[in-house]
């Protein structure tokens, strides 16, 4: 047997009631890289992504079998401290969802909750997180203003900064740019390329150009199964499976 990767799933299945949305998926997410999840609508990308930080547990009627490994620990084990785990795995959604608080509070909230009370330390975390999310220069003079006053693209970067504020090792992005204009999308893509230097990133996208631009690995999902998974270059130029090629071609066309 091959050693499981530091972050990987093994035989992971997810059910909503009787319906099996994810079917026995085993795949790894290499460090310092971006893995893109692609596939037609309803094939289970979001479900799979949400299960990685156990957000799927919050949906009534959902359950899972199989394992998720992180540094040798099984995240699906019943004793797992979900709260600690979520601190290590950040998540950002399609629609920006900043808290109804100031820009500063959006970022400082998590760290403060985890025990950092020192004002200077918090200031520092806020600045670093915003810088890492390429938002600092745009908001540094208005940190006390409501986060809801920011543009959609800025809000989305704020959400990324908020996820970064608690220093996660993994970032899960569910179509993070699909509600944004091309300029904001470009910024988010640059950001992803920058962030992957010290993070594992998993991104769901319907945009094939985007997958090709930002990801190192691509996984093609169809009806809850993992059809093909490999290096992005290879998946896009020379996929093994016909259905992968058809999906990608259809999407590019």
């Amino acid at each position, binding site marked *: 047997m091959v050693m499981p990767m530091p972050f990987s799933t093994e035989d992971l299945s997810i059910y909503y009631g009787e319906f099996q949305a994810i079917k026995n998926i085993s795949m790894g997410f290499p460090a310092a890289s971006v893995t893109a999840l692609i596939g037609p609508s309803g094939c289970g990308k979001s479900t799979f992504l949400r299960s990685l*930080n156990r957000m799927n547990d919050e949906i009534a009627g959902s359950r899972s079998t199989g394992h998720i490994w992180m540094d040798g620990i099984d995240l699906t084990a019943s004793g797992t401290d979900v*709260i600690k785990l979520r601190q290590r795995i950040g998540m950002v959604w399609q629609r920006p969802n900043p808290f*109804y608080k100031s820009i500063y509070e959006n970022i400082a909230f998590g760290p403060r909750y*985890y025990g950092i009370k020192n004002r200077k330390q918090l200031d520092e975390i806020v600045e670093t997180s915003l810088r890492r999310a390429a938002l600092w220069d745009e908001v540094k003079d208005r940190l006390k*203003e*409501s986060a809801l006053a920011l543009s959609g693209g800025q809000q989305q970067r704020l*959400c990324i900064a908020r996820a970064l504020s608690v220093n996660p090792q993994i970032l899960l992005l569910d179509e993070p740019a699909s509600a944004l204009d091309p300029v904001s999308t470009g910024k988010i893509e640059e950001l992803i390329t920058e962030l992957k230097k010290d993070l594992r990133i998993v991104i769901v996208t319907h945009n094939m150009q985007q997958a090709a631009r930002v990801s190192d690995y691509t996984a093609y999902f169809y009806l809850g199964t993992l059809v093909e998974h490999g290096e992005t270059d290879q998946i896009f130029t020379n996929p093994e499976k016909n259905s992968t090629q058809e999906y990608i071609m259809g999407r590019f066309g």
Partner: protein
Amino acid sequence: MTTQTQILRSKARKRAKTADKVATVVIIVFALSIVAILLGLIGFIMFRGLGHISWHFLTSNPQTIREGGGIGPPLFNSLYLLVLTMIITIPLGLGGGIYMSEYAKPGKITSFIRLVVEVLSSFPSIVIGLFGLLVFVNTFELGFSLLAGALALTIFNLPLMVRITEQAFAGVPREQKEAGLALGLSKWKIITSIMLPVAIPSLVTGTILAAGRVFGEAAALLFTSGMTTPPLNFSDWNPLHPRSPLNPLRPAETLATHIWKVNSEGLAPDAIQIAAGASAVLVIMVLLFNLFARWGGRTLYRYMTASKRMN
């Protein structure tokens, strides 16, 4: 496209436009008539009562037989009873509403609780008054007292408060909760720090509604807080002293019960004017409380969400 279909389409469009205009006019007429009724009502009460309001009227004791009675103690009692009731109602209502919206799993028990809340909210207040008489006044031996009145009003208001809290929390975007969960926050932290601030505007509205009912309620209070006020010593603010205005175990007639009493069995020659003046004061208090609660809610919301407006 043939000219005929073109004509038909433009006719249809015109018809739609006319319908739109008619509907707009009808709606505006309805809205205006509601405003007119409300203004007329307030104007009528003010017209009848304002002339009778004076500093003396607001501060002196009521008179049973002689002329020149005031409404000092009832006015104070109304305000104090409001505070007492809210101290009990708000925590219970928030707790119940948060439970219903965030903790209760859909099922038989939850539906049953919801049914009970709804039945309770349609109880006639006189029944709640009689219940308060039996349970709080007699069984718990609270006597005719502010506390018994506050408890009866809590029963009266709790369903409203629970329902409004439940709806306020259910109205918070699900994405807010998800964001908190993904950050690893506990459920309680998400409820108190993420959702509560968002829910504040609706909670303020609910509190205003509940408070308005406290000001206006008479039937539930006749047999609980009573229809008399003992002589009060307005320089003694120790709640434990029997003659202190703050003593929650003393009987107290409120403005609303006082109006009721003066109107139904008032012997003073100026009973009609006193009722009119007291009514005007009651209306003014409700209006003032509305403004104050809205201003307070807005300030709180701004403080907690760093926003400029209440949206």
